[in-house]
């Protein structure tokens, strides 16, 4: 995996002047959020009802831990 670009170094202290750089480094970058463009349903039963209503197959992404949260 390629490294990400960052304004931080291993020496950067946390203080009010560097706070924003830490936020920016840690939070997801736009290119890391492409998966949120999928219209995920968040409840298996609701998804089943919706799929029946629109006559489509379901696609289940099942993980130990919520795939949209901490997995």
């Amino acid at each position, binding site marked *: 995996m390629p490294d990400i670009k960052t304004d931080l170094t291993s020496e950067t202290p946390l203080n009010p002047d560097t706070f924003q750089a830490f936020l920016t480094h840690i939070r997801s970058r736009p290119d890391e959020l492409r998966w949120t463009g999928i219209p995920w349903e968040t409840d298996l039963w*609701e998804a089943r009802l919706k799929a029946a209503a629109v006559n489509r197959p379901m696609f289940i992404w099942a*993980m*130990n831990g919520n795939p949209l949260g*901490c*997995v």
Partner: protein
Amino acid sequence: MAGRASVFSHPEIIRLLAESFVPVADNCGYTQTQQDAKGEFFRLVAEQGHYGGRTKPTATRQGLYACTVEGELLASINTRDADQVLGTLKAGLDRWRQRPASSSPPDIPKAYSPDPRLNWSYPEGGLALKVTVRDLPRESGEADPRHNIDFAWFTRDEARSLIPADPQPGLSCPAPRFFARRIARCHLIDTVRGQSPRWREEDIEKADVTLIVERVTSGHVHLRLEGEVKNEAAPTFDVNPFSERVVDKPRGVDLRLLGYLRFDRQQEAFESFDAVAVGPRWGATTYNARFDDLGPAPIGFAFEVASDDPIDRVPPAAIGSSYFA
């Protein structure tokens, strides 16, 4: 979480899922065993799939399933390879199209009696935070892209209790104990590479969080958050069933917190909650894939108000009977 980058960022997979399926994300850690109609439906599908009947190295049914609403499996796989997933989706769609047309829509009950063990609900009117965790740059300059997300929940009353009754600039108050302990116990956990258990109460050596009123207007209270959290735990000696090795080691975090919060006095809600916790982490747990990176090495956590989008309303990983304790 690697699948988000390797599979679900692929343009063709995004298009196929959006146009031809009803995609759903499911925590099968619950649905594999939950005793209700939802759990039964998941098991009906999963037992036809790639891990059907499997008990070793684990009984997990993690993976990707294309199925009908009646529970007929169309295709399944467990991989982070986008090309393989694309092939599985196309195979599933082919099977879907080859099915004979049904003369009547399936009869699916709108409601069912849910397993009472899973009875948590979103804190409407409260505070939901999105928490992102990522390694910080090393001395080598390496900046690893891997990261994970979670959500932290506070009830309406809990969120309001973070604001002093008479906020005046310069006023400094310890954050309520529940707030500091929940953040420390449930959310400052090294999950950058994979899941890890929350801390036990006795693992928390220090959880000091202070809220300082910086500015007050008729509409808003602006607060600065400062704090320190130190957690340390002995290994559990659990065996990783995949490697068949004991990979967990003594673990800990030693973090400094800084943040800036804006509370809307009319709405009685936080408009923004931008905070970070940074410092060294060390050790490994059974499933967090740190056995080759025991540290100490720098880690960072970032907090922000979660959006109201359904995908930002999923429960905290540590939700359970004692989460709000």
